[in-house]
């Protein structure tokens, strides 16, 4: 039984894969606790570069950039999730309709066009309509490319929730709004949360598009880090990187837990009983 699943060497390659993926991150995380001002020599364990991130000479710049990144990601993820939820309802709850295929292609478009092309096109667009580049242009660009990432988990979840629950509610004289709010939305929630988390991380992550449309003087965390790294990797960058790594790990863990919980959602329980 187990025989056909086993291939010699596959475990070794899996471990190689994980080493490749984690070694650079682990090394930077370790060196972020380096007490020495040199990035090459080890000067004992210390938290000085973490202190430097919050109180050092670059603290104000990185603080502002982090605030911009955070507020942008919050707004972009929330807007994109609302748009994607509405789209998923139309795509999966309204039966076949004309333009469904085109809508599907449109939703997935930001995943298919290379990032650098989106960046160039967005810059050209905003510059042509005379829109000053800055916070608002970044926000609009982020909302746009976050939509498919929010859509995927929501649509996947919606597909798994059968229409019978809403129909039962409607049969019992619930209005369409009530059936959505009291029945469908709670069942859909794990997908909505996963979608929001993914959109948030994607927005926080973005460098190329932001770098093109940000304009002078405006920084997000990735563009600030990029600007700093261009002059050489400094220890405070490693501390910031490790902090961002931690945020990503927390988000992925949250998404993972939400998904695991959703497997025991009422929808499946009712079905099996």
């Amino acid at each position, binding site marked *: 039984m187990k025989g056909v699943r086993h291939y010699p060497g*596959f475990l070794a390659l899996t471990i190689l894969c994980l080493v*490749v993926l984690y070694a650079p991150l682990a090394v930077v995380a370790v060196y972020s606790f380096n007490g020495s001002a040199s990035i090459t020599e080890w000067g004992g364990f210390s938290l000085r570069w973490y202190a430097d991130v919050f109180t050092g000479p670059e603290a104000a710049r990185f603080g502002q950039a982090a605030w911009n990144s955070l507020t942008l990601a919050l707004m972009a993820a929330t807007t994109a999730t609302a748009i994607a939820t509405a789209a998923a309802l*139309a795509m999966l709850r309204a039966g076949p309709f004309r333009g469904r295929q085109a809508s599907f292609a449109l939703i*997935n478009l930001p*995943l298919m*066009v290379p990032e650098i092309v989106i960046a160039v096109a967005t810059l050209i667009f905003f510059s042509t309509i005379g829109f000053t580049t800055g916070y608002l242009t970044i926000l609009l660009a982020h909302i746009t*490319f976050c939509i498919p990432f929010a859509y995927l988990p929501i649509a996947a979840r919606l597909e798994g929730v059968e229409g019978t629950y809403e129909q039962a509610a409607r049969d019992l004289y619930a209005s369409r709004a009530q059936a959505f709010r009291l029945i469908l939305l709670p069942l859909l929630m794990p997908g909505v949360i996963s979608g929001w988390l993914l959109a948030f991380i994607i927005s926080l992550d973005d460098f190329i598009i932001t770098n093109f449309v940000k304009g002078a003087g405006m920084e997000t965390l990735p563009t600030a880090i990029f600007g700093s790294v261009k002059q050489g990797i400094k220890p405070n960058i490693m501390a910031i990187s490790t902090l961002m*790594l931690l945020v990503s790990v927390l988000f992925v863990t949250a998404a993972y837990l939400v998904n695991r919980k959703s497997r025991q959602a009422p929808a499946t329980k009712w079905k099996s009983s």
Partner: protein
Amino acid sequence: MAAPGNIPSPASDTGYRSLIGPLLLPTWAVIGIFMVLPVLLMAVYSFLTKEFRGGVIWDFTLAAYDQFFVTRGLFGDEPAQIEWTYIAIFWRSIWQAGLATILCLLIGFPTAWFIATRPAQTRGLWLFLITIPYWVNLLIRTVSLKFLIRDNGPLNESLMGIGLIDGPLPLVNTNLAVQLGLFYSYLPFMVLPIYAAVERYNFALSEAAADLYASRWATLREIVLPVVKPGIIGGCILVFVPSLGAFLAPDLLGGAKTFMIGSLIDEQFKGSQGNWPFGAAVAMILMTLVLIVILFYARAQARGVTR
């Protein structure tokens, strides 16, 4: 991540039929205005005349495409010949992306297979380990790799420490470093779609092959690979397409000799050296290449469904 292709069929109508318009309007408006319109505008820009200090003059010309494909000597008075500079950059990008795809497949397939054949309790944990780097900031991952492989970085130091090499391996600013960067950046993109395909694979097929005296590797080649092919093609697309237009890996890990499409485009929009119509034209050519790859994928998928 989403591979374009199969649209799930809609469930029965539960009262949303009359709302299709309002529900889809925000999607059409946002993606239409801030993505489709800009790409169309970019196409127009690639036929405009460049203005110094960035920007364009609204005079239609083929100058940008001419600059890409044709050279007439330094002073523009020689007979037209093919310009190889930019084609060479595209060619380098294509083989770098292709090599990264092959390397990711060689490591990614065994990893995906191994994870998909774990018992249900530990499978989630393995998958989780692959998923984390997928969501870690790509800039930070690239910077971390540069820190690891730089001349007096931990990798070279420890290799010299154990006496394997005498001096540091000059990795940074080489094609090899860029290759390593692309491979490292997009490796999770290969594992996840293949995992999804292997997870649905019916192992009874392998058992049947084994009963008929097929060797392990013959089974892999003749049975498994054809069945999980959609996942493999999906993974290859997800690695190849972003590698082709990658900016961070070539910019941070490479140098002047490792120039790729992403940096070429980026340069056209920076400062007074810029040339917006040329940048738009290069972006158009890149997008055309990517669309060809995706169309090929869609056709392969369609064939897989009918098979």
